[in-house]
């Protein structure tokens, strides 16, 4: 009986050890400089219009490749979902509406202010500042590295950036500078390198 228990404990310990090993040893180790290069790629996507337009520091979202203030005076609201009568979902449905030119996706809403990637003059924050936000679990919604990667892989509103729908004139919205698989790979490489941030 005692032997059985000890065996159980040993196996448990192995599992625990291999979990932490999983976190640190599962990904191929990257050098810090490679990690910084990967981060710049991630940053280039985060600050492209399809992403940064909803990561504002202000009371409003932006729209368009020129990132102008969203029309009709729509505002953030207490939960980033707009205000009564003018919610995000008042217009943005659960999928793109190409026939009417309105983009859509599941749970359309603004990123919280803690995840702002611009300053209050609508200028993108520096690579260093955005990196620090992303790696600060008090700001990023409590995501650790694994969860962050999963977010970039699977979150519907993230995926939307690569399927952003058409405007009313039929033109497709411009895509981020990397493909989604490239974006995920770059995220992974950055994480492998220990999520280094530029100074």
């Amino acid at each position, binding site marked *: 009986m005692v032997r059985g228990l000890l065996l159980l404990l040993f196996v448990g310990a192995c599992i625990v050890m291999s979990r932490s090993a999983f976190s640190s040893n599962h990904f191929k180790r990257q050098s810090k400089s490679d990690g910084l290069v990967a981060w710049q790629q991630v940053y280039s996507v985060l600050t492209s219009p399809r992403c940064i337009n909803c990561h504002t520091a202000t009371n409003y979202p932006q729209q368009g490749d020129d990132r102008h203030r969203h*029309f*009709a*005076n729509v505002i953030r609201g207490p939960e980033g979902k707009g205000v009564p009568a003018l919610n995000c979902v008042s217009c943005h449905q659960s999928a793109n509406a190409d026939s009417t030119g309105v983009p859509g996706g599941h749970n359309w809403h603004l990123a919280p202010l803690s995840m702002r990637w611009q300053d209050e003059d609508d200028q993108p924050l520096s690579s260093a500042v955005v990196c620090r936000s992303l790696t600060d679990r008090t700001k990023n919604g409590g995501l650790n590295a694994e969860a962050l990667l999963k977010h970039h892989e699977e979150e519907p509103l993230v995926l939307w950036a690569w399927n952003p729908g058409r405007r009313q004139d*039929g033109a497709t919205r411009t895509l981020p500078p990397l493909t989604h698989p490239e974006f995920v790979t770059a995220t992974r490489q950055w994480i492998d390198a220990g999520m280094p941030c530029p100074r």
Partner: protein
Amino acid sequence: MVSLYLDLPTSAQEAGQAPPAKIYPPDAFIHIRPDGKIVVQVNRVEVGQGTHTALPMILADEMDADWSQVIAELAPAADVYKDPLIGVQWVGGSTAIANSFPQYRELGARARSMLVQTAADRWRVKPEQCHTASSIVYGPGNRSVRYSDLATEAARRTIPDKVALKNPSEFKLIGKPVRRLDGRAKCDGSHKFAIDLDVPGMLTALVARPPVFSGKVRSFDDKEARAVPGVRDVFEYPLVKGSAVAVVADKFWIAKQARDRLKVDWDLDGIEHADSSRLFAQYKELAKTPGGVALKRGDEKAIDRIPESQQIVAEFEFPYLAHAPMEPLSLAVRFDGDRAEAWVPAQLPTWEQMAIAEVLGLATEQVKFNVLFAGGSFGRRGLVDSHLVREAAAIAKRVRGRPVKLIFTREDDMRSGYYRPMFVHRVEVGIGSDGAPLAWRHVVVGQSFVKGTGVAMEAVLVKNGVDKLAVEGSSDSPYDIPNVDLTAHHPTVNVPVLSHRSVGYGHNSFVRETLMEELADRAKTDPIGYRLKLLNKDAYKFRAVLTLLNEKASWRTRLPAGHAVGYACSEYNNTACACAAELSIVNGRPKIHRVTVTVHCGLAVNPLTVESQFQGGIGFGLTQVMPRGAITLKEGRVEQGNFDRCTPPYIADAPADIDVHVVQSTEPPTGVGEAPVPIIAPAVVNALFHLTGKRYRSLPLVEL
């Protein structure tokens, strides 16, 4: 809206010298139903201005009708519904109440007289022994009879030549705040606008228009368009200038899908590709040279003798403006070969009925012309060249036998519309030693929507090559300036233009009132006092509104830090108004905290309407200063397609607080739809000067 100043009295004061009023048959305007409802035909399209309530009020008051039983209907096109002074059926120039006040009073009084006479005959008593109230005739000895029980017999009577009108002290409705007759229906979705029309067999047409005005169709490929199920026809037809391709389908969305799939090769050669920047540069050059004479007074060289230090030289720029009524343009026509029917939210039914007849090769009487409610107009539906009905008739002619509703999408009207023209003004003001303007040289440059059109009113409005409608506000300035040299140029530009709510006052009052305030500031005088001192002695309505403003805007001496006040006054068709606007700057934009407005419109027939027109007119007038309030052209193409790029004021842009004060008056009523529009923009920039130190002479206010 267009003001048609023919050689007929349009001012209230002149009305006394008018030819004897025509006798209008009550039965063309009033129908008393057996159930007691009284249906009044209103000879003016309701575009929001409130005539649909005010005109019936006037009639019902004289008639002693039970107001709760009154229903108003839009009269169709017919001779009997023509404006009594102007001689055409129309809405424009803020003339409805002014010109139809006596008409509707007499109609009501005549109807009452005939009803009383009928009752008196029945009872074998004298009419003087009877009195009326609330749709009932009362006779001696407790007799009474309802109007509805007299109506049929009364209608057979000869219409009396003379009729006694009420003493104003007896008015029960006129002068009282009365809620709109069309109010409830507009709140529950039941009210029908032109675009809501649904008649049996109706088809819908959308039109692919040239991207540059006056462009023509060279060829088109409709294969994919016709493949959309529900498409009936695709064809080219002529526009007033150029040509377009119509898509006719069962429903709007089908027509839109088909039009989106239409491929048109446009011939854009040999036509002007208008460009706002280029035009402004050209206009500014032109403004340095004198044009056709609008007004000369005193010594035109006086300005040259005044030293530069005592002069203000100012250049003003005003862009094209879109009317952009909330209801997009639409109308319907059915052509049956020997007759036609039209459903139009028409400001000019007389002309439009004739235009349809002309296109279809019919006599005017063969066109049944129904007038429908309009969701706003601001002049957009007052078509000098009748282009909308001409297009609809051409489409109906091709489709033949079925009604076709032609709809303009928002983009269609914004990109291929008719606009308030752009203007440049150049003014040189010579200031006397007392701080008052001594000499005023002023050149106005901008298109005329009348000149060269050949319409009847051109001969009246255009003198010396100057269109009165482009210089009003300057040519009829209420201020005494001894030496005035006012001229104008009207370039021909390939951009269609039209009357726009407050017409010439919209830009001329801006120029005048910003300069007035600058002069007052220079003279270190209170701006209201400065204006009062300068007013011509005959400008008694201006005097009244400025004096009342002085009293009602007493808050102006107790402004919080960071707030400033600006003033302006203007007029339209004998209604004068003035305002004080309190502003501060919030997030780099002007924030208007309150506006106090005073108005002299003679007797205010419906104070609720007057207040709403003034609150609304001020909100509308703010469009001129909104950062994206303008229409601009680049290489022939309008740059704005919808409200996202051409953005009028939303609720946060308009002041929450607009108090309106009417000068008490028993003078004949004058119109209020347009008077308020010009005053807010100059008041705003006048206030802004105190906040930023800048004089804003170029609209819109893109940045401060």
